[in-house]
């Protein structure tokens, strides 16, 4: 079981700014919280909001590390706040910033939804198969190699938290860069035998500098993905594939 040093006082340095409030200016505010055993950043933020400042904004949904709502910069690195234990930080100082690369809603809350929907529309994150609608739901489903199904699931585990986008230097320089989240979707649907898109069709989507050729290979995505998805391998794979496409 998790044991934390009981009674330690944590210092949270939190980015505060509400763009909805006229005249509000961005600032860092420090809050002190008494650490409890097994405390996560989720628990601490709730305590701060309820006991110290009712206006503090942040996003949590599942609080179990699976919904991707709570990505934020925790002591310099993008991560999921719900499953980050405060005991991880030896000196008890925790700095929280909103994820860069997304529109700020307020404080630690950013608008990943609009970004992710645009990414989905750009990549076409659905099975492209003109015959799919005609398949009878009464009949046996189309068979799939069991290994392929498992491999697709490995890539389908992306929770669109945005940590890879926040960690991406290319994205910071080039606003229209697709980013690792989009590449992972491409890799996932490219691998899926049910998706009938050709390599040439994929080239239309990612065969340029805003796509897979723009990546500077700094691999902040690989280093910071909370789901440990194979970004490095897949970006390399897509590049190789796209280089081979005759246009």
């Amino acid at each position, binding site marked *: 079981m998790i044991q934390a040093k009981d009674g330690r006082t944590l210092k949270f340095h939190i980015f505060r700014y509400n763009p909805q409030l006229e005249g509000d200016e961005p600032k860092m505010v420090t809050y002190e919280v008494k650490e409890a055993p097994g405390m996560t950043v989720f628990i601490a933020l709730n305590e701060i909001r309820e006991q110290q400042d009712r*206006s503090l904004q942040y996003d949590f949904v599942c609080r179990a*590390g699976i*919904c991707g709502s709570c990505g934020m910069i925790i002591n310099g690195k993008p991560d999921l706040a719900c499953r980050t234990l405060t005991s991880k930080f030896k000196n008890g100082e925790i700095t929280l910033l909103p994820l860069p690369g997304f529109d700020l809603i307020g404080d630690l809350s950013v608008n990943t939804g609009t970004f992710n929907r645009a990414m989905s529309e750009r990549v076409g994150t659905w099975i492209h198969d003109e015959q799919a609608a005609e398949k009878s*739901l009464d009949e046996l*489903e189309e068979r799939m190699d069991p290994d392929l199904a498992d491999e697709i699931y490995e890539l389908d585990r992306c929770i669109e938290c945005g940590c890879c986008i926040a960690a991406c230097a290319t994205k910071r320089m080039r606003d229209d860069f697709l980013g690792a989240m989009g590449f992972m979707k491409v890799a996932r649907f490219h691998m899926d035998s049910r998706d009938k898109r050709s390599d040439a069709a994929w080239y239309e989507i990612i065969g340029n500098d805003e796509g897979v050729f723009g990546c500077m290979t700094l691999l902040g995505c690989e280093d910071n993905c909370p789901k440990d998805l194979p970004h490095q391998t897949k970006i390399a794979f897509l590049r190789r594939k796209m280089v081979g496409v005759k246009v």
Partner: protein
Amino acid sequence: MNVIYTDSLVIGGGLAGLRTAIATKQRGLDTIVLSLIPAKRSHSAAAQGGMQGSLAATIKAEGDNEDVHFADTVKGSDWGCDQDVARMFAQTAPKAVRELSTWGVPWTRVRKGPRSVVINAERVTINEKDEAHGLISARDFGGTKKWRTCYTSDGTGHTMLYAADNKAIECGIPVHERKEAIALIHDGSKCYGAIVRDLITGELVAYVARATTIATGGYGRIYSVSTNAVISEGIGAALPLETGVASLVNMEAVQFHPTAIVPVGILTTEGCRGDGGLLKDVDGYRFMPDYEPEKKELASRDVVSRRMTEHMRKGKGVPSPYGDHLWLDITLLGKEHIEKNLREVKEICEYFLGIDPVKDYIPVRPTQHYSMGGIRTFATGESRQLKGLFAAGEVSCWDMHGFNRLGGNSVAETIVAGMIVGEYVADYCESESVEIPMSVVREFLRREDAKITAIIDRTNGEDVYELKYAMQKIMMDKVGIFRNGEDLEKAVQELEALVARSRSVAIQNKIRSSNPELVEAIRVPMMIKLAACVACGAHARTESRGAHAREDHPERNDRDWLKRTLAIWKNEADDLPTLGYEDLDVMKMEMPPGSRGYGKAEIIPHPDTERRVKQIEEIQSSMPDVDRHELQKAIMPYELPEKYTGKNERIGVGFE
């Protein structure tokens, strides 16, 4: 006046909402989904273990079909469900699994040949047939006769939700995110949409629609500890209650899942036990076979949760600073299996407990998990009181779960209900010419705006967090797994007082735009009313059925209680709901009440049961030459949208 018009308004962007929206959009109707959050973050994503559908591809599912699924569901419900709806569901579920496959869910597939599995704590080899290779596999779950739970590792809900949301994006369905419906627009007989608050700007908008579907999930957060997402506060269920007209039903039917981790209450899937995991006590002893010799760890959830609680009460729990717990042991499944099929469980154990389930036992305890009760609907999904109002998924009481839901049947219900209810919503939109009384819309906008102004302007009043915690504690302490008259009576009185206090909530952060405290101030009074419905229903129901277990009334009393509890909130000034009842008709049941085959069976029979059993036997003997489909139709005919009535194909038996 801010107004947005559409044909089909869907409140909630989880699986049930998205699937309903896809159905109406595909019928050519203008459709809008409202969601508190980006749709892919919905709580549907947390369903780990899988979705039941009788595809019968794996060898351990041989002989499975709609009939077996139906029977398991009815038994699981402790005969509280609507058997027509359970039939509609069992018939459509295989189609739902197959449809999701065409939409991209990477279902785990059957691999031909021998494979090693753990059954009843022993490693055995099963041989999958050659002709099953590559078809959708299934795992074992509680309360089921066959391996029927289709899955993708333990991220099933995630893959389903992503496939459904991607399909919705392909269809061009707009999802209006960070919007909260705070009131229904209605005239007492018809619903015209909802008043919606923008959670960023604070602006109120009237979404006016021909049909409004609520698909907002459960109300687990009325309890202190719940496996539910923090947004599962039940506001979607509260909206009809606030109309004073529409009824909620069986609100006392609350499920506690046997294996949530201690102390934070995050779920570890039933797949852990389905795949062979065991429950152990303070001595490392496997205790479930002593209580449930037949189903052991895989009895239905209500039964396992009660047995665990009983065992802890005997002093066999593991003491911890957060109270007693038991152990879930999946070490016997081996590293390879855990890392492939239970990887989310492994991550949760690593991050929240600092343990490795390959080597260590997981500390677990029964925890609030699912709301069987909800908005009362017809089998079409439409409210029985307000025309044009529909509900689908956990928020509804459609009612296929009765007093206990089987694992794997909820995520299945979301999609299946979306498919079926979506068709009926579209039918309604096409048939009804809706005259929108704009004066009603205007009045609701004004009223909601005034309520918010009052909350902001109030200088002295109740603290919203204090009220919320008081409610959650009452529910936790007095309306839990085991219930008794004395505690329930206290719970009702205390909640009654909270309802009164919640009318004068005041907040510290006095801004109208994005303001988490204001969100709570709008929600908490509605949540307390829901809690009161649960407590009142539980107090009045003097029997034990499914998840509702009364220590002072341990028997299932079919004679007096084979009925659903209805709750309405008649007047705004009332401090408690008004209860009513609706009988279940034994003479229409395909499966008359009987024993579940697990749990304690003390049953006071219904006077019609014997008569109906005889009647069914006569029907059976009068039709010796018909197939199972014909026989079923003769015993209990039911309606279903035409497109889902086709027979389901399975290997070995074809369309039989």
